[in-house]
C-alpha cells in the first residue's frame, strides 16, 4: 500500500531507453530477419560444436558413465551430485588428488600471472623505445617463443632443467648446487621455512600436520609450488610473455605523443610519466592480459602432459590434467566432467573477482582519460 504510490514515478522513465534504442538500431523487420539469416551459420556451428557438447558433458558429470556406449541410455546410472560431493566432501583418494591439483594450480597461478604480466610489460616498454636499434629483431625474438609449439618448448626445457643441464650449469658458476628439478617434490615454501629455521621439513609442526582442510593437512596446503613446478612456471612465463608483450606494445603505440610531450613540459620525470600517464592508459590492456593469463594458467595442460604427467609425487598435477586422466585413463568420465565444470566455475569467479578489483574507482579521473584518449 505504501509502495504503490511511489512505484509509477520510478517506472515512468523506462520507456525512454527502449524508444531510444529502437530509434538507434533503426532496423526494419525484413532487415532483422536477414540479419538472423546471416548469423545463422555461426549460431548453428556454435550450438552444435560448443553449447550442446557442454550440456552433454554437464549431464555426464551427474552420472557414473564408464565411457561405454551412449551416456544418454536409460541404463546409465544417474548419481546426481555424487561426483561433486566426492570431490569436495567425501574423504578419499579422489578428493585428495583433486585438492592437491587445486593447490598446485593455485600456486602456479599466483606465480605465473604477476610474473608474466610484469615481464610482458617490461619487454613491451623496452622494444617501444624510440632510441632502440634493431627494434624489429628484438620484437621477433621476444615473440618467437609464443609461436613455437608448446610441446617442442617443453622438450627443450626438459634438457635445460636436467641435472647436468644448462640451468644447473649456470647455478654452478655461482657455487650453487642446483636441485634435481624434475624429481624434487619439495615445496618451495617448505624449503624456505626450513632454511630460516622456522620448521623442520622432515618433521612438520603438529599444528599444521594434524589439522586438515578438504583432505589435505595445513602443512600440505602451505607447501608452495614444488621445485618441479617451478621449472614449468619458468617455461610458461617465458613462452607467454611474448604474446602479452604484443598486446602491451599495441596499447603503448596508441598513446599519443602529445601526452608525453605535455607531461615532459609540465616537468614530469620519466618515472612519473610512466607511473601517472602510461600505466593508467594501459589499464584496459592490463585487464585483458590478466584475464587471459588467469584463464590460461588455470587450464595448463600441455606442459604437464609432456614434461611430468603430474610427477614427482603429484606436485605438478593440475585440475585440467587430472580431469583428462580421470576420464580417459581411469574411465571415470563423470568425475572427469565434474572436475572440468569446477574448473570452469573457478575461472569465472577469478575473472569476476579480478574485474571487481580493477574496476574504475575514481570516476572523474577516468572520464578525463577517456576524453584524453579521444583527442
Amino acid at each position, binding site marked *: 500500500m505504501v509502495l504503490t504510490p511511489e512505484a509509477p514515478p520510478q517506472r515512468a522513465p523506462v520507456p525512454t531507453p527502449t524508444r531510444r534504442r529502437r530509434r538507434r538500431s533503426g532496423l526494419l523487420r525484413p532487415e532483422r530477419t536477414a540479419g538472423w539469416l546471416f548469423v545463422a551459420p555461426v549460431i548453428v556451428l556454435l550450438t552444435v560444436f560448443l553449447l550442446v557438447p557442454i550440456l552433454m558433458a554437464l549431464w555426464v558429470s551427474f552420472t557414473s558413465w564408464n*565411457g561405454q556406449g551412449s551416456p544418454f541410455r536409460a541404463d546409465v546410472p544417474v548419481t546426481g551430485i555424487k561426483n561433486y560431493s566426492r570431490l569436495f566432501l567425501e574423504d*578419499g*583418494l579422489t578428493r585428495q588428488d583433486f585438492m592437491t591439483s587445486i593447490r598446485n594450480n593455485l600456486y602456479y597461478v599466483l606465480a605465473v600471472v604477476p610474473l608474466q604480466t610484469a615481464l610482458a610489460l617490461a619487454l613491451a616498454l623496452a622494444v617501444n623505445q624510440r632510441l632502440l636499434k634493431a627494434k624489429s629483431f628484438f620484437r621477433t625474438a621476444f615473440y618467437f617463443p609464443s609461436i613455437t609449439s608448446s610441446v617442442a618448448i617443453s622438450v627443450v626445457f626438459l634438457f635445460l632443467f636436467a*641435472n647436468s643441464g644448462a640451468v644447473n650449469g649456470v647455478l654452478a658458476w655461482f657455487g650453487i648446487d642446483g636441485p634435481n628439478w*624434475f*624429481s624434487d617434490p619439495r615445496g618451495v615454501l617448505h624449503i624456505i621455512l626450513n632454511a630460516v629455521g622456522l620448521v623442520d621439513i622432515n618433521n612438520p609442526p603438529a599444528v599444521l600436520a594434524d589439522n586438515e582442510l578438504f583432505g589435505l593437512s595445513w602443512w600440505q596446503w602451505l607447501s608452495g609450488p614444488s621445485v618441479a613446478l617451478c621449472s614449468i612456471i619458468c617455461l610458461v612465463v617465458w613462452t607467454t610473455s611474448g604474446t602479452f608483450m604484443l598486446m602491451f606494445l599495441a596499447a603503448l603505440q596508441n598513446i599519443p605523443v602529445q601526452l608525453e610531450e605535455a607531461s615532459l613540459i609540465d616537468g614530469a620525470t620519466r618515472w612519473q610519466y610512466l607511473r601517472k600517464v602510461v600505466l593508467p592508459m594501459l589499464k584496459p590492456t592490463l585487464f585483458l592480459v590478466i584475464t587471459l593469463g588467469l584463464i590460461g594458467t588455470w587450464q595448463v595442460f600441455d606442459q604437464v602432459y609432456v614434461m611430468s604427467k603430474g*610427477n*614427482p609425487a603429484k606436485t605438478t598435477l593440475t585440475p585440467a590434467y587430472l580431469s583428462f586422466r580421470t576420464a*580417459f585413463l581411469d574411465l571415470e568420465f563423470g568425475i572427469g566432467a565434474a572436475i572440468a565444470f569446477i574448473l570452469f566455475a573457478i575461472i569465472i569467479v577469478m575473472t569476476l573477482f579480478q574485474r571487481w578489483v580493477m574496476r574504475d574507482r575514481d570516476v572523474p579521473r577516468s572520464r578525463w582519460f577517456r576524453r584524453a584518449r579521444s583527442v
Partner: protein
Amino acid sequence: MRTSHRVMAAAFLATAMVASASACGRGFNDTPEQQSGPAELEVLIGSSGQAETDAVQQAAAAWAEATGNKATVVPAQDLAQQLGQAFAGSNPPDVFYVDAGRFADYASAGALLPYGDEIEDADDFYASLREAFTWDGQLYCIPKDFSTIAMQINTDLWAQAGLTEDDVPTTWEELRSVAERLKAANITPIVIGDTRDRIGAFMVQAGGWIVNEDGTEATGDSPENLQALEYFKGLITDGLAVYPRDIDTGWGGEAFGKQLAAITFEGNWIKGALQNDFPDVKYTVHEMPAGPKGKGTLSFTVCWGISAKTQYREQAIDFVRHMVSAEQQIKFTEAFGVMPSRSSLRDEYLAQFPDDEAFIAGAAYAQGPVKAPKMDSVLSDFDSGLQQIATTDPKALLESLHDNTEAALAG
C-alpha cells in the same frame, strides 16, 4: 519485437539440439550387427618400436592375404588414452593390445569380447598369464607375449670393485653386502625404477602384495610388505640404491647403459635397448635375489583384445589365432625379442636365447600386475609415495595404499 528475437533464437537452438542429438544417437549402437565375408579389421597396437610395428604389420598382411580380409595395423602414440577415447566415442578398433594392468578396467566396463573359449589350444599358454586375463571366471583374451623383471650386472664395474662371479647376490643380505662393497669402490651400486613395477618385486619376495590372489581384497597393510619397504628404504637412505632421475636418466636401462650404476632390475626389453643405444656395455643377467619368503619377481603381459562392438567377431578371432600361433610367435621373438606366451615354445626359445634363462625362470614365480578396476589412481598414488620413500614412513604409506585400495574395490 524483443520477444520475437527470443523466440527465433530459441527455435534455432532447439532445432540444432535435436539435429545433433539425433546425429549422436546413430553412433551409439549397443548390439553390433555381425558381418560375414571379407572383413576390414582395424588393429591398434602399443608398439615398443619400429621393429615391432613392422613385424606385426607383416604378420597382418600375411593373414589378410591368406584369408582374403583386410587388416590395418596402426601403432598408438598413447594406447591407454587412445582406447579410452575410442570407447567413449563408440568407435573402438576391432582388435587392440590390452595391457594386463588395464585389463580389469576394460573387462569390467564391458568393452572386451570374451573369446578365450573359442581358442582351441588355450591351455598351452602359461597359466599365470591366462589368469591375468580372466574376469568373472571367463578367459577374455589371449596373451601375446610376456616379460619378467630380472637383475642385470655390469661386469666391468663389478670387476672394478673386486667382485667375482661368485659374489652375484642371491639373497637380500648378499645384495646389501655387495652394494656396500660397490659403494666403497665409489660406484653407484643399484639403480631401480621408482614405481611399484620394480620395487613391488621386493614385496613379492617378502611374501606380500597389494591385493589378494583374485583381486577382491586389499592386502597392502601387511607385515610382509612393511618388511620389504623397510629393507628397500634402507638401501635408498644408505645411498646403496638410487632412482634413475637422481642420476639424470629416464629409466634404469639408460642409467645402466651409461654405466652409471653396477646393478639394475629391468625386464627383457633392456636387451634390445642396450644393443641399440649402448652396444659396448658388458653385462650378465641373473634371477632376482630371494627375499625372506623365497624367490619373487613381477611379470608384465599384453593380450590381443577384441572389441565387444566389432562387426567382425569371427574374422577378428581368426586374426588373433594367427597372431598367437606358435609359428608366428617365433617370428615375433626373432624380430623384437619378446618371450613367447606358449609354454610349449619355452625350450625352443631357450635354445635360441640361452642368456634369457633368468627371465624365463621368473615365469614360474612371477606376480602379475594388480587385477582390479579403478586401481590406476590408487597405484599412482602409491608410486608417488615410493618416489619420496627416503622421507616417508613405510607403515603410513602402506596404510594409505590399503585404505585407497579398499575404497576402489568397494565402488
